[in-house]
């Protein structure tokens, strides 16, 4: 089938990376550092590793990446817009 035989990522290596990243994330929560700017990129990296290598998206048809990215894009847009929409009022319109 397709491109599976051509490429065999180092699954154990990816797993090791995931473990290290997760351990780092947990450690961060015990340290006096800002969480959001550190944890978000780390989590995204983990997710990307799983998608690219475990789900083989890096080596597979671009259509699958496209489908998945539409979902991801939609997800990010929804989260961002909802967070903004549910903020307390920015302008005091009823002054």
């Amino acid at each position: 089938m397709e491109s599976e035989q051509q490429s065999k990522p180092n699954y154990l290596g990816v797993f090791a990376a995931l473990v290290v990243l997760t351990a780092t994330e947990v450690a961060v929560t015990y340290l006096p550092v800002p969480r959001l700017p550190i944890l978000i990129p780390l989590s995204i990296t983990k997710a990307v590793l799983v998608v690219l290598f475990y789900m083989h998206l890096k080596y597979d048809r671009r259509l699958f990446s496209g489908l998945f990215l539409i979902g991801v894009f939609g997800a990010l847009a929804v989260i961002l817009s909802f967070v903004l929409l549910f903020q307390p009022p920015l302008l005091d319109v009823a002054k």
Partner: protein
Amino acid sequence: MSDIAAEHPIEPTSLGIDNRKLVVWTFIASEVMFFTGLIVTYIVMRGRSTTGPYPEEALSVPLVAINTFILLSSSFTMVTALSAIQRGDARGLRRWLIATAVLGLLFLSGQAVEFTTLFNDGASLSSNLFGATFFTLTGFHGMHVFVGVIWIAFVLARAFRGGVTKDNHLAVELVGLYWHFVDIVWIIIFTVVYLLRM
């Protein structure tokens, strides 16, 4: 997903992709939106509970961190299972699939423990907004893990009957895609709910 795939030559498809693989990827893309709805509900309802228990006190990271490692390991065993059958190693396939299912069940047990701890703290679907959003999000994720374990069992059964081979193992790839997706969702949940304590 037919055992008789070899008897009937599959008509060539316009894109040269197997229909079943295309449908699973499309379904996963759709499920992303489903979990987005649950996650965004959790996020925007943060800090709005009018009574306790509150996540700052109720949630504790260590147990769930272990659970996260368990689920990550299960993704590793799953992809190793696929790798095995790609080499024609049917025994390896079965072994690693069983490992994946066991890890999945272990994860679910960990969740059960976590849920029980929270119940004992007074958190439930009806206790407050935190309970409602937390249990709905993690509950549906857990349901997806459970469905995944059952799916693995189906594939395992077929593997034991000899129906999964080096040339015919799409079923393993497909259950793997679903399983990794569920793992990714957990990565997000773990960060958003437990680590960011947002």
